[in-house]
């Protein structure tokens, strides 16, 4: 146990936790997008995929608990580090002109906390399927397709037909991508993998991943809202 205590004790240890849990969550976000994009393959594809994910409860709940642990550790490290970082500068500057830093890098805590709230709403909306939060007056749990599977396709269409819900979704995903534009390249730095000739590549990686994720995640609600998918 002592071997790993530095992870929880030192500032660098907590950054390793941030980086590793962040990496796990980025992998999830990419896989989640790849799964969701089957929406464009039509009702049959996405419903089959939804059924497949729910078919093995052991794997489903194993993944869910794993994700919860990642989020929990990521949040814990973020809050601990933020408290320590604030304590490191009790008296601030009268004038403070940010130099060299990006907007995303200075607002990681705030964007992260808003994303956490968005994720809670998103789970209530599409996973727990609480009827009140979808603002459509439909109970998503009752949607069933011809093969008696849960009709994921219809749920996505109905869910994104409300402009307020869709705008919140777009903002949530936008903040996630802002968070990742700094987070992805930063996690390589924290793990000591950003040195020498890899440095420019890793700097760009964060931006590229963010833009790709943004286009991918925005494409689904926008296509519904613009009436391209019914």
């Amino acid at each position, binding site marked *: 146990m002592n071997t790993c205590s530095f992870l929880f004790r030192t500032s660098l240890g907590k950054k390793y936790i941030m980086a590793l849990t962040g990496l796990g969550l980025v992998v999830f976000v990419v896989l989640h997008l790849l799964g969701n994009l089957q929406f464009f393959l039509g009702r049959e594809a996405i419903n089959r995929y939804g059924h497949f994910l729910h078919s093995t409860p052991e794997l489903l709940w194993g993944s869910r608990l794993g994700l919860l642990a990642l989020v929990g550790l990521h949040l814990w490290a973020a809050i601990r580090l933020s408290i320590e970082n604030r304590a490191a500068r009790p008296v601030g500057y009268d*004038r403070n002109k940010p130099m060299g830093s990006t907007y995303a890098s200075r607002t990681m805590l705030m964007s992260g906390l808003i994303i956490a709230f968005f994720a809670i709403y998103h789970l209530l909306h599409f996973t727990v399927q609480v009827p009140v939060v979808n603002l459509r007056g439909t109970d998503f749990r009752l949607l069933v397709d011809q093969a008696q599977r849960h009709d994921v396709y219809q749920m996505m269409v109905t869910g994104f037909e409300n402009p307020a819900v869709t705008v919140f979704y777009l903002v949530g995903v936008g903040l996630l991508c802002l968070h990742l534009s700094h987070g992805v390249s930063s996690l390589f730095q924290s793990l000591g993998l950003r040195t020498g000739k890899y440095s420019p590549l890793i700097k760009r990686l964060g931006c590229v991943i963010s833009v790709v994720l943004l286009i991918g995640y925005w494409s689904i609600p926008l296509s519904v809202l613009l009436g391209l998918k019914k």
Partner: protein
Amino acid sequence: MNLTLKIWRQKDRQTRGEFVTCQARDIIPDMSFLEMLDVVNEDLMKAGHEAFAFDSDCREGICGTCSLVINGIPHGGQKGTTACQLHMRHFHDGQTITVEPWRAQAFPVLRDLVVDRSAFDRIIASGGFVSVNTGGAPDGNAIPISKVDADRAMDAAACIGCGACVAACKNASAMLFVAAKISHLGLLPQGQTERYQRVVKMVDTMDHEGFGACSVTGACEAVCPKQISLDFIGQLNRDYLRGSLKP
């Protein structure tokens, strides 16, 4: 040129400080920022007031003693320049300039613009050295070192320990300083023996002194008068991980 200065005035460590406004008259654009402060102080003393205390030593940008946050940027924002090498021609007549000390828990203000940076000395004392047995002087070129490593070690060794990285960081983190020190020793053959103990001890001292963690914003690299690269922090993160996991 005439300028208005908004300067931090603080009697000692215990007393609360405040900003005071004063005039800098007949400043020659070729003066350095510190020379401008000398003029202001001389005028103050002639009028029977107390001069502003500020740190300075070599005044040629190599000692790392001057430590002023000028208009919200440590060393004033000219690339690769310390406050003593910052010239008044970068300002315009009639401008109001805010001058503050480094702000960090680990760098308490001693008086006015002077801060106590001995936390850096304690970090160095905890491991920032190479232990060498005394004896006959070794041949200078007896140990082969690749040009690439020698150059990178020299880039890291350019750190003058001024603390601008801490002052600019939103977390008042000393990572760039520690990274420069562990890299300049760790990249050379002579530094290998103590490489991993060194990094663990220095990071522990850094945490103990109350510096924050690295958020990889890059503010430190941007203000560093010696333009130490953020890549060295990657090296520090890598070495610390190895050092901590070493059996």
